[in-house]
């Protein structure tokens, strides 16, 4: 199977390093990745969506509306915070946190749901559907649906419904219907399958808000564009606060939307290293992880070609991570392309390392991070001591940890 990766990687690197960076191509390919691997029944809705997305992302009135919502409803711009005490403790590079945890609903997810919901309204759709893992994207979708008066149905794997009760309740409070998906592994990937089926059936009035940079074209590009506000702001904020660009930008990667949102505006800054951090779960060697870029193979799932976790027969494998938001067997196709080209590096940290970082940041800086985010923090804590004190690492603090109180308490033997 190594030959599949080798075949795909041939001739990639030089194409990417050439500025300007203009991926994907017209059919949604990032090099050999991405694309539209969907049944014929989805081609028309995707074409309709692509046309609307292309039209409104060049529409001044739409962009004004989006900017106003990001400012007044989400609370943007989110600050960049210099974690001085944590930096001193690690005795190396200066650590900066892009505070997406301070957004309305507590994570970066809302940047995208605001954008897609406004697009849905422009397209005349009255019903929103979404898939969710940890529940953050579901909450962010239910939130914007409530505000715009749209009907909202959220698909969530039965396993995730059980481990994220608080978010399920939040979605219901917001007026959304939460459907527990009982098929397959009963987690995020199956929720996505179910949402696709709903969309095919109800496409006339329904808009499907995908929560990450995966899925068929135009989703990976569209979600990236809505999330890139993170990197645009952070780039300017770092220059303002430190007089220069960071040496490293870092983010956790499940589907990869917070990472691509941070990375994208830095892609042409060749001096800035980009590091994505996947979930190694119990350890890559155990097979119980969610790290397709570090330990997977290229394949096709959910409408795009990307790195996947699959078995020898091409069936998608069950994943494991302490964080539901990283528990996905695929990854956005643009990350696959950034990996093959060498422009970004991808590493993985275990559940235990992420938990240690969770406690570390909480105690040192008084910021309780999401378990997803804690994976990036763990990698930053490994890297920082190897760098000079005048170097800097910018980490996307993609979400806050309130939703993870139960999971973490359980690790300590407590039931809340």
């Amino acid at each position, binding site marked *: 199977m190594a030959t599949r990766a080798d075949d795909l990687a041939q001739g990639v690197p030089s194409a990417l390093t050439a500025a300007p960076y203009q991926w994907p191509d017209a059919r949604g390919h990032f090099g050999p990745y991405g694309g539209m*691997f969907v*049944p*014929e029944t989805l081609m028309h809705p995707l074409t309709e969506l692509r046309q609307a997305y292309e039209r409104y992302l060049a529409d001044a009135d739409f962009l004004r509306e989006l900017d106003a919502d990001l400012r007044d409803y989400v609370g943007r711009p989110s600050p960049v915070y210099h974690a001085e005490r944590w930096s001193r403790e690690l005795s190396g590079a200066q650590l900066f946190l892009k505070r997406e945890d301070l957004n309305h609903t507590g994570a970066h997810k809302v940047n995208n749901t605001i954008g897609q919901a406004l697009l849905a309204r422009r397209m005349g759709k009255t019903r929103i559907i979404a898939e969710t893992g940890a529940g953050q994207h579901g909450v962010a979708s239910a939130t914007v649906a409530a505000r715009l008066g749209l009907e909202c149905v959220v698909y969530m794997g039965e396993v995730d419904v059980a481990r994220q009760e608080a978010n399920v309740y939040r979605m219901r409070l917001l007026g959304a219907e939460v459907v527990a998906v009982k098929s*397959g592994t009963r987690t995020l990937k199956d929720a996505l*399958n179910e949402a696709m089926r709903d969309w*095919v059936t109800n496409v006339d009035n329904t808009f499907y808000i995908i929560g990450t940079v995966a899925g068929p074209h135009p989703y990976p590009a569209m979600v990236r564009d809505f999330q890139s506000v993170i990197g645009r702001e952070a780039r300017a904020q770092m220059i303002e606060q430190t007089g220069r660009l960071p040496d490293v930008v870092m983010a956790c990667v499940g589907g990869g939307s917070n990472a691509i949102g941070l990375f994208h505006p830095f892609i042409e800054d060749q001096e800035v290293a980009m590091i994505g951090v996947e979930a190694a779960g119990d350890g890559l060697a155990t097979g119980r992880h969610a790290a397709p870029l570090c330990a997977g193979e290229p394949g096709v799932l959910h409408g795009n070609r990307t790195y996947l976790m699959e078995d020898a*027969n091409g069936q*998608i494998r069950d994943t494991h991570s302490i964080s539901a938001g990283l528990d996905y067997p695929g990854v956005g196709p643009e990350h696959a392309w950034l990996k093959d080209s060498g422009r970004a590096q991808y590493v993985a940290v275990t559940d235990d390392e992420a938990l240690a970082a969770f406690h570390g940041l909480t105690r040192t800086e008084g910021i309780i991070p999401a378990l997803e985010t804690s994976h990036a923090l763990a990698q930053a804590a490994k890297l920082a001591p190897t760098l000079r004190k005048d170097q800097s690492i910018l980490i996307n603090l993609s979400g806050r940890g309130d939703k993870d109180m139960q999971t973490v308490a359980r690790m300590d033997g407590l039931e809340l």
Partner: protein
Amino acid sequence: MSRIQTRFEYLHAQGRTALIPFITAGDPSPAVTLELMHRMVAAGADLIELGVPFSDPIADGPVIQRATERALAQGVSLRDVLGIVRRFRETDSETPVVLMGYLNPIEVMGNAAFAEAAREAGLDGALIVDVPPEESHELVDAIKAQGLDLVYLLAPTSDAARIEAIAEVASGFVYYVSVKGVTGANTLDIDEVSAKLDAIRARIALPVGVGFGIRDAATAAQVARVADAVIVGSALVGRIETLAEQGQATRIPTVIGDFLGELRAAIDATDNGGQHG
């Protein structure tokens, strides 16, 4: 001439509509599948569509997804499915068999390796539901190089340009998805279907099969009036599920055979009524 083309030309000459059952290979076990295939031919099936189990079947409804899960629980792989086809061919050299599945298991096997193994097993064609004409040209070339047919889906939302794009690559027959939704969805508007078939036939010279939403003899007869082939899947797979759950898997070939026989009779009655378009 391919086995599929031969079969459709023969049926056309007789003024008959093809009956195409779909079952998931390995549901509830590979042994039942093989026996069931022969029984379906005896009951009047003209071509068999064999579903390849995949863990994430986004185009299928809950009935076929559960069938897929039953097959995967037995570890049924793409190679196993081709093995079933090979054994079927030992005693049936005439009934065309088409695989219906998703791309990833094929790519893992290797495009050329799959196409070659498929031809050797006696397979006649493939419908890879998540490969539109825009993608995976290497696989398309590999399959065509082995002389196999490539069947494509068409949907109510397929416009003239898309029908023409599919006309360029499709062979054997095309599969018109008669309702918006996934397999097993339940409403069928025969006038709408008829109008769409006219638009398809104006652009594609191949036989057109109609599937999705055919659940009994009455709907099969309705579709037979306008289509070249009636494709029935979830109605069969749902019956297989019920029997498997009741621990009566050995009755599956008989029950499915009898049900297909009813559909065959209803379709023949329609064809003999001379209303075939």
